[in-house]
Structure formats: C-alpha cells, structure tokens
C-alpha cells in the first residue's frame, strides 16, 4: 500500500502533488549579523542534523571572500559563521531561510 498525498488539477489531467514528492515547508527566516571569524547560534525548535532540514544563506553581494560562510545544523540549533583572515568587514549581515521537507 502506498502512502501519501496526491493532488490533481481541476481538470484531472495534471498531478500537481504526488505521493512520493518531497514538499518544501518554510520553518522560519530572518537576518543575523555575524562578526568576522565568529558565529551566531539561532535556536530552531526541532532542528536536527539530518537531510529533512534545509538551510539557505543569502551571502553578501560581491565580496572576494563570500565563500567563507558556513552553517551547522544540530539539535534545536542552527549556527551561522563567517571565517576569514582577510581584510573583509568586521561583521556582515546575512539573511537565512530554514526549510523542512
């Protein structure tokens, strides 16, 4: 027996949700200010380090060191950090998005 939700359009000709689909559900979003070579912890109830949790970071526009951003998922916590030894800004704001699927 298959489980899941199937939804068709009003004409019944197109399946818009299938019973094997992973759907994105928005948990929360916001913006944090992170100091250089540091991180910020954000409490996310229920968060776990597994592939049902997805995080998006909106990195700063055109910095030579944009690749130094990182995030870490752990139990009930999201850590967003910014590591660089270069002369980048002392702190940067970064929007983040948390999804479950």
């Amino acid at each position, binding site marked *: 027996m298959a*489980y899941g939700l199937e939804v068709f359009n*009003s004409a019944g000709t197109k399946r818009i949700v299938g019973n094997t689909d992973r759907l994105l559900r928005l948990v929360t979003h916001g913006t944090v200010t992170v100091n250089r070579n540091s991180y910020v912890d954000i409490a996310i109830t229920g968060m776990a380090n597994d592939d049902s949790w997805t995080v998006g970071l909106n990195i700063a526009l055109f910095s030579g060191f944009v690749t130094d951003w990182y995030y870490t998922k752990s139990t009930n916590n999201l850590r967003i950090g910014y590591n660089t030894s270069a002369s980048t800004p002392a702190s940067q704001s970064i929007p983040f998005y948390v999804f479950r699927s």
Partner: protein
Amino acid sequence: MAYGMQIFNADGRKQLDTNESYPNTQLKNVTTSAYSAMAYPPSGYVAGDLILARPVNSPVYTSGGYVPIAMGTLNRFYGSQTSTSSSNFQNTAGIVTALLKNQSVGVGSPSSGEYGLDVYDTNGSTLLFSATRMTGVRLLAVGTVTIGSSVTYTPPASLDFNKIYAVVNGSLMNYIPPIGFPVNSAAQTFTLGYHFFSSASTPYVVVEHKYISGGGSATGTGTFTYQLVYDPT
C-alpha cells in the same frame, strides 16, 4: 486526544503536519526576463522569499555548452546586459525567474463551488496547505558544496527539464579581468551557482563552487547551499 493532520509520502517524508505548523510553499511570479534587464531580485520579491531561476526554453550556451544561472553583480543575474564586465558570458536569450513564497500569505478566499483540500493552523486562519489555490514545488535535490567542489544532478527522464529551477539566493558568478596598471592584479573568477546542460542527450545540472585567482583554484570549508526544485504544473 490530539487533533490535526499528518501526511507522509511513500518514502516517509512529511508532506503536511499541523503539529509543526510549517506552511508549505507556493510558486509565484513566474516571469521571463530579457537579456537587457535580468533584475536580481526579481519584481515582487519580499524578505523570506526564495528566488528561483532557470534557462529559457531555447537558451544560448557558453562555449562549455551550458547555461550559467546565478546572481551576478549590479543587481542583475549573471549574463545580463547590464551586469558588469563585457568579459562575462552574455545570456542574450534571457532567463526565467520565479519566487517561492510560503502558503500562509497572499491567499484569497476560495471561489464559489471550489473543490480541494485546504489545511489551516490551529488558529484557524494561517493556511498551511492549499491544493487548489496555490501550487507548490517538488524538491529534487538539496545540499552544500564546499569551495573547490561541484555536484552533478541528473533528473529522471520523466521530468520536463524546462521546469527545473535553481534556488539562487546565495549564488554568485563574476569574472574580473586582470589589471596591469597601475597595480598588477590577477584575473579572478567567482562561481557559486548552477550550470544547466540543457542540450545534453541526458540533460543535467552541475552545481559549482569555485574561486579561481591567477589560475589557481582555492579550497576551503566555505559553503554554498544549493537547492533544485520542480514546477509540477
């Protein structure tokens, strides 16, 4: 006794869960933008939206045979006519963009005689899921790519490749030519984005995260978060 609704898909993934009260997402503002004005973010964007993009159905390709999809500079997508250096790839065919918003906002009342499933939060007003008044997306691939690495995603043949979107929040592509005077500087290439190989016999997407300066490729632990989603309509 607990009330509410939980729906799991055949793989055990949650599709709906009123206990969590996380709204599903909806695809909005699907727009084709011309080469002359591929604005980033697209019109209609508000904080909290994910920005989606894909090549047009009849794209132009780089010499490498792909369409690069990412944010560029000067508030344009990479490849736009007004996105900085002429040394960059020129995406003269344009781009298709969309916004992924949550389903709890901007929802009208159901029309008379409408059928379908609507699921509300326990407050009775926050819509978590609507089957008929908004269309969500299907998550195809998600993950992170560290600097110096790439990931290849090949969708199943059953999917229409022209309905696959990349989430471009956090992406970036740019090429800075070398400068010889007054200060020598090497050429730099930033790639945190997607390469759509639409014309391959089996189309695929490569997620790239590379920073090249003076011919040398950097490595490190920096993260590029990628997502590929599918428009089921």
